[in-house]
């Protein structure tokens, strides 16, 4: 009986870990062409906030970056993100998915040598999936 209880506990623990792993939170960093005005970009923030998957949002106008981190167990598709950006009047240039914290993303963006309008930018692609022009 004791063995059975232990086995059940181990099984439950393992399954909860595997579920977490399946729906783990992720970070999404987007390049948004044309985003130069905070007043206009606020619609992006508003719509991203309304997504059930969104945990944190970061917008950097100088580097034209919009980034979010997602909640555990929630996901957001590239199409949903693209619609939000296009509806706000901008163009989605690229989407990078990774496992970074928002603090990491802020540091990456600030250290980024990307110049808007210049496609040959350098940044850390480690542990991230990069999708090209949308």
């Amino acid at each position, binding site marked *: 009986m004791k063995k059975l209880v232990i086995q059940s506990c181990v099984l439950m623990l393992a399954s909860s870990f595997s579920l977490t792993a399946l729906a783990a939170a992720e970070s999404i960093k987007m390049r948004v*062409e*044309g985003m*130069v*005005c*905070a*007043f*206009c*970009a*606020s*619609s*992006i*923030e*508003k*719509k991203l906030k309304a997504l059930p998957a969104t945990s944190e949002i970061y*917008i*950097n*106008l*100088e580097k034209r970056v919009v980034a979010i981190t997602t909640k555990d167990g929630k996901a957001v598709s590239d199409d949903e993100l693209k619609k939000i950006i*296009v*509806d*706000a*009047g901008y*163009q989605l240039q690229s989407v990078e998915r990774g496992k970074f914290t928002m603090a990491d993303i802020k540091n990456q963006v600030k250290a980024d040598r990307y*110049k*808007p*309008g*210049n496609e040959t930018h350098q940044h850390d692609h480690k542990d991230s999936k990069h999708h090209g022009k949308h």
Partner: protein
Amino acid sequence: MGIFIPVVLGLAFVKAYLKKIGLALALLLPLQASYAGLFIPKDMTMIMAMRTGEMTTTELSYGLKPNLSMAVNHFEFTGHHDRISRYTGVQAAYLLDRHYGSQGIANWYVFGGPVTSTYMNADSKNGAQGGLWFDYETLRIYTRVSAQRFLVHQREQSVYTAQALWAPYAAEFGEVASWVGVQAMRDSMQTGQTALTPMLRFFERSWWLDIGVKANTERRGDLFMNVMFLF
């Protein structure tokens, strides 16, 4: 037919957003003024109020599509010898072109719609207003030129506006952006001269404030104020 389509669109807009419009108009009444920017993101509502010397405008606009916004607006101009003309109308603004440059964006809009107008307290007459708007903006530079014409029962009025502003620093998202610049405006109902308005601009996520002092050779010291809320 040209006027019918904007009217139908306008009525549908009013019906769909009656509650928001009621709230917005209630907020606008004490301000008695506004002037439109045309960049309204889809599904966003913007209230604008502007007052400057001889001109007062109020506007409520809504982004129907990324390239199309609808507005209801009211304009009041005081011309020579205190002749007052008022226009109330429905307006569609369409983004003709957006150019994405390395530093910023350039936009071409066309806007217009039907108006009902009164002049010198005479009976109201129907007509139309419309115009063209171009702006170019970066994080630290804003320029705009626009031309607007009102045509009501053989009476015409043209208003030309140009703005150039500069930001001493590039504000982060969430910080208050501060700009300094000048607006030039010529109104055919006035003496034909161009009025200059040195101005300051402040905005953050959901609010926008322009404040300045308007001057031409006849009148000086009229307060210029433009307020916008986005929600």
